[in-house]
């Protein structure tokens, strides 16, 4: 074998793995705020909500690969090398996001919380209908915590921005929005108050 620098390289590898774990967060989008819990054993998970909804599923693997031509290794600059590392982080993030969205879709379908627009255009009515179906949370100061909207296309994002603007400027929609939020607050408060041991 050729001289290797095993100890230093082992340390560097650990640093690179940590870097990838941090870097992928930048590409996770809405999932970047989702905490990552570590499981030390087992091959699957089972979850049960407070409402009794059950879900069992295996762990999924999110992986990425990159190719390095060893014959061309001497031409690889540090910048090019780090670009490959960043690409790994991005690819893993993409895999993870896909898994996340698949799980959300599965969960939503299971409880029937899906609105099929049947290829109709996005409208304010549709937006308000979605809000009606959602569980909406509030912080300890009573401030509304609306969920994030994730779209697949730029034009849909722009459309949603327009819709939300209209909801807050059009009197009729503003009223309906206000009523929905008040109902949601009531639901939230009732739910909060239901945390009790009775009897």
């Amino acid at each position: 074998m050729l001289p290797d620098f095993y100890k230093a390289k082992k340390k560097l590898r650990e640093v690179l793995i940590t870097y990838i774990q941090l870097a992928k967060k930048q590409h996770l989008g809405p999932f970047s705020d989702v905490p990552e819990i570590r499981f030390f054993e087992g091959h699957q998970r089972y979850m049960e909500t407070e409402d009794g909804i059950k879900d069992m599923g295996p762990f999924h693997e999110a992986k990425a690969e990159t190719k390095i031509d060893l014959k061309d290794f001497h031409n690889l600059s540090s910048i090019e090398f780090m670009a490959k590392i960043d690409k790994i982080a991005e690819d893993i993030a993409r895999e993870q996001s896909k898994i996340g969205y698949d799980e959300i879709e599965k969960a939503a379908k299971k409880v029937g919380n899906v609105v099929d627009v049947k290829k109709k255009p996005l409208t304010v009515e549709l937006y308000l209908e979605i809000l009606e179906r959602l569980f909406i949370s509030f912080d300890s100061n009573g401030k509304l915590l609306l969920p994030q909207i994730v779209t697949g296309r730029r034009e849909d994002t722009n459309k949603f921005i327009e819709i939300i603007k209209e909801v807050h400027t059009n009197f009729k929609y503003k009223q309906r929005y206000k009523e929905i939020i008040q109902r949601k607050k009531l639901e939230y408060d009732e739910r909060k108050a239901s945390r009790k041991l009775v009897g």
Partner: protein
Amino acid sequence: MMKEKLLENWLDKTTERSFTIPFSYLLAAEGHTIVHITRHCGMELGRDIISIAPDGIPCVFQLKTAKNGRITLSQWRDMNAQLVDLVTLSIPHPALRESNHHRSYLVTNGFLTEEVSVAIEGLNSSLESRNFPKLEVMVKGSILEKIRNLNIEIWPSELKDTKLLLEILTESGKSNIPKEKLVMLLEKILLLEIDKHENPSNAEIKRAISSCALLCGIVTSEFSNEENFFAEIEAWTIFSSYVFACALRYGLKKKIWKDEIEISQKVIYNSLNNLFEEIKGRSHFVEGDTLSDEPFFKGRITLLISLMSLFALWRRYINDINDEVEAEIRKFCLEKKDSLALWGEAAIIQYLAFFWYYRKIDGSCAPDFMLGQLIKAITELNKPREQKEQVVRFLASPYYSLEEIAPYLRGFADKPLNDFFLGQSYFLKGLVHLFVRRNWKQHIKSLWPDNTRIKYVSFEPERKWHYFLWRSMRGTNIIKAPKFTKKWEDLKEEANENQGKCIPNLMKQNPIFFLLFLLIFPHRATSSALRWLDSKLMKL
């Protein structure tokens, strides 16, 4: 060949303290029933091991380290009187019937000089003339022969496994047992690798267990030399757990593993006793480098309180009555209980060990309120935080030891912690049940809303024998959110359940050992396990 060299090297360097346990296992493998193993506290008058040979004759062994590979005449002169007593005095032990004679052995890891050989011959002539049996001698060569007979070929022979063994052997005896490395070796020897399907004969498994016991004795040598009693306790608890895994996986009859388990339990009990003696004699509880001890100090006290509580409960379990010992344990635990530190969920089982002892010695509601305080602490430290709220304190899951989590709690970790603990707990459900059993209804009512914000997490191994493994790659991680509204009567019913269905029957045979197992394997302390254990220990 390499393994033999390794063993010979170990034997050359071993001391009486570190050799006692491996030698006990060698005897057990030959059919001896081990009746007594020394604590090396100077009270045993040279009787390091007492056994009953396969032919029913009691045997007594004195172990002596050979300095520079040989027992010299000056060493012989120092031990001569003790050896004469060894042969001529009867062995006062409750497990032995009145016997006219016993066999006496001098065991050394080296050889005898010519002068010593001659001296022993002279002694034996004198003993014979007085109708006493001879003093038998076992030297290095015969010990190595015994080891070879134990079929060490079954020890892992691949280079990486030998490397693993070397790494454990060269570990400082002052450190904690390198559990991950130890279990890797145990899994290989005892044929417990989950993805491999073996079909060994009973004879093969028996040899594997005996061989494993010897291995464990050897790898704990350095720790024994340093009088690192907790490391001994950990190692032998892990060994016992893996033997149980083997017994369950292969449907072994008790006679195949009974001896090794009994010895390991004696060793553990001795280590607890030794630890007790050390604690009794200490004026402070700082250990090692003082400058860096602060983050670990209260965690150490918490661990010591739990171990002494376990020791006190064990003594009650086996009716080992000694008011003086009980008074000392009680004094230590009660004086130090204000130093209990909740550094992570793994500490909770340590609190519970104390709780079960505390409940025996204190009739007030203070022990029960300790449960309430633990519940409150979990719901406070691990409550879900609002976004962007900085998390400064949390309770790590029971998969983290103090050594692993302290750097993150105190800010001296060199890499980020890739884990998240808020909104979940492995112990909360069990604690709630224990508190409910004590009927503190109003207290639980006030704690309930915060309790519902924490999900109950547990792990269910795929097979019953996986329960005994340090980690099992097959199994289900269960995350359940408690119902927001619960009826008191329903909660009581849940809390009173005590079948312990998750616990393999082998473990149910000795609740004290099960508590010890949970102290070392805190991630196995499910709510079902805690309820069962509580039912058993409260009856003690």
